[in-house]
């Protein structure tokens, strides 16, 4: 029996769908099909036209068609004045938020695909002009559209496949695990994110790790050094496997030369400081590595700075390797 997926978009950029289509596979439809997944409807991939979709939605709500996973991409737009008027599903005159509420009630699992659907995300930036929120969160606060106590028919709360965009592998792994019946409540972290990626840190596998160890920090874009001290990087606090499960071949934000902005976390869109600068108190970054007491960090940082090899120091302020590592035999004599 195939695992039926219904994918709908609301207040977002569509980038999580575009990212999904970058999945690392030679044959995308076969990847899903062989994983037991049947895409009933996807806005970018279905032939069927509007009447077919509206008919499908009626079938689902009438109990004639089962949806195993409802994937919502984009934030819920509640405004103005909680009317949902900022997004009426085309052809229906009904607020998208009403459609989502009804469909979530009958779906076996509900996935928030991307940080907009999970927490509001970028769509809730600044003054949040559309009153955007996530399916079960509004920034860090539980609630959102469906409420803190929402549980889908399958027994799980909303599964927050957060990221901006989300990684195609995070979505596909989640769907394949669900389809295989191998995903349950203990596979979710405290924010409802799949632990297979949320139990990792962006710092893990970062190619700038040697610079981090010695606090040899970049001072400007293109510098090879660590981006934590000056350039706003939150990779030591951000939950995701971006540097071990790479993006678009060999990419990640750090590898692209720019800071991790912790885009898998609620509220990342309004960090309270410029994205590209590290906020500091008395010269010490405010956001320290997760699980690390401040005194230890300060002690280690001053020690490692004083022990920085010249090679690391010089290269950290260059856009290419100026001083190569010394070559020494590693054989035991």
């Amino acid at each position, binding site marked *: 029996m195939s695992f039926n997926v219904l994918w709908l*978009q609301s*207040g977002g*950029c*569509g*980038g999580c*769908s*575009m*990212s999904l289509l*970058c*999945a*690392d*596979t030679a*044959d995308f*439809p*076969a990847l899903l099909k062989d994983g037991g997944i049947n*895409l009933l*409807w996807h*806005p*970018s*991939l279905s*032939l*069927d*036209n*509007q*009447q077919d*979709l*509206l008919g499908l939605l009626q079938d689902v709500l009438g109990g004639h068609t089962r949806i195993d996973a409802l994937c919502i991409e984009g934030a819920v*737009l509640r405004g*103005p004045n909680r*009317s949902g008027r*900022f997004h009426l*599903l*085309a*052809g229906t005159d009904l607020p998208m938020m009403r459609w989502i509420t009804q469909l979530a009630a009958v779906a076996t699992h509900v996935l928030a695909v991307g940080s907009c659907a999970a927490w509001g995300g970028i769509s809730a*930036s*600044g*003054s*949040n*002009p*559309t009153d955007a929120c996530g399916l079960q969160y509004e920034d860090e606060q539980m609630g959102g559209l469906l409420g803190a106590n929402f549980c889908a028919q399958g027994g799980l709360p909303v599964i927050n496949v957060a990221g*901006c*965009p989300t990684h195609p592998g995070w979505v596909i792994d989640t769907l394949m695990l669900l389809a295989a019946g191998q995903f349950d409540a203990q596979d979710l972290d405290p924010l409802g994110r799949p632990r297979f990626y949320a139990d990792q840190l962006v710092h893990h596998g970062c190619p700038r790790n040697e610079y981090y160890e010695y606090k040899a920090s970049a001072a*400007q*874009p*293109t510098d090879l050094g660590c981006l934590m001290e000056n350039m706003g990087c939150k990779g030591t606090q951000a939950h995701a496997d971006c540097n071990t499960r790479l*993006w*678009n*071949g060999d*990419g*990640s*934000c750090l590898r*692209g*030369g*720019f800071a991790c902005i912790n885009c898998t976390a609620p509220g990342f*869109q309004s960090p309270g400081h*410029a*994205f*590209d600068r590290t906020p500091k108190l008395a010269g010490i970054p405010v956001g320290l590595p997760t699980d690390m007491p401040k005194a230890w960090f300060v002690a280690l940082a001053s020690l490692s700075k004083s022990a920085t090899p010249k090679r690391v120091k010089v290269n950290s302020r260059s*856009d*290419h390797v100026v001083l190569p590592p010394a070559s020494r035999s590693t054989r035991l004599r």
Partner: protein
Amino acid sequence: MTRRLVLGPFNRVEGDLEVQLDVADGLVKAARVNAPMFRGFELMLAGREPMDALTIVPRICGICSVSQSVAAARALADACGVVAPPNGELVTNLMLACENLADHLTHFYLFFMPDFTSPVYAGRRWYAQAQQRFAALAGSPTGGGLHSRMALAARARWFELVGTLGGKWPHTGTILPGGSARAIEATERVRLLARVREMRAFLEQTLFGTPLEEVAALHSLAALEAWRQRAAGSDLALFLDIADDTGLAALGPGPGRYLSYGAYAQADGTHAFARGVWSAAQQSVLPLDTDQITEDPRHAWYAEPYDVDVDAAADANTCASPNALHPSVGSTQPQADKAGAYTWNKAPRLAGQVLETGAIARQLVDGQPLIRAAVAARGGCVSTRVLARLLEVARIVPLMTQWLQALQPHAPFYAAHTLPDNAQGVGLTEAARGALGHWLRIENGRLSHYQIVAPTSWNFSPRDAAGTPGALEAALVGAPLDNTLVVSALGDATGNTSVAVQHIVRSFDPCMVCTVH
């Protein structure tokens, strides 16, 4: 008797779209295009640190993300006067071109061609072949779609260019006012060149069936006919057969005025694809005066700062509403209950006129002879829009190879800049779908004003204060409806659409999420 049909949601376009049609005698008599979602990015940007725009604006759009980044970076560069070093311009062009080409592939294989696998066309001689190559990849029980699958795999692999140059796609943060945050080594360049050759191989084997240069050099309709014979098995040749058989040249005429801001900045200040306005009537390129751009909110759900006596304006036969403002002074304040409004998209005009933008505009302005000849013979229509996109694909790949070879490893990719506390800037670029502009102002070190005019804002514009419909609205007039359509089981308020309407809408490759930024 005139009936009103409401069509939507449209799939295989980016974002949510609704089209209202007034139909009579089996033809569309009038159309209104509704972008049914509001997102409010211009309001979100106010009060932010100026450089935050580079994190926020790519997220306007998941399919035009790099283009949004480039427009913002150029606007910030304009505000502070920094000039990116040659390497910075080259890698920016490479990322733009990568996204542009991928978007054209996505449009052709995933969004546009699947319509020809609709059961409506069963029985056409090309139907089985269309099924086999272009069947939709979800919700379709028929299988097939082999070339769409190959294109999707080639596209995913292709975006590994941005993986290397920009860390990820969509939503890179590598693009900066002073160039790029990521220097490229010689070893990376040879790998990127190999990736470009892979894409060339896919295009030459599947889409074109001949070397790219042969396609890029096509200069007349006669040359295209001769090329078709040589490349009979290719997807472009199949498209041309289908276009002839289904009469796509008769569908969706554009306004005859085409806008390009110029694509791919060159070191000498020009563009690889020139800037300007192509007038089909005058058969000439007119200079572009961006001071003449306005956005008219009359039929959009936005507040109008100035009171207008509508009758007096009509009596005086005034076209320009005082609320049709240049984007350096325009505003975007939602007013969901505004009478007479029907979309979240304002009406952009250049000197009061409706323009079309996109690959067809770029190639016309740049003087690509085949596209000029095709538009002269058939008009800007469904088939010429698609042809222009594919021709642009053939032109882009050799340019990308040149740019990669022009990179100078270990020369700078980035120039530092300091943003003034008070400044303004304009950033113009070409997204796959056409002219994209950002207008910003910085006051006391914060963004105080941000206006964005996106390509689909032009193409899917609503009526302006004078009642002149936008490009798609006009292009739909006269489109035939399917026989089964008007007698919908659900009555007049809704109904299935005609394939002609689907072809016309998708021929513009709309990006609704950009439109409703």
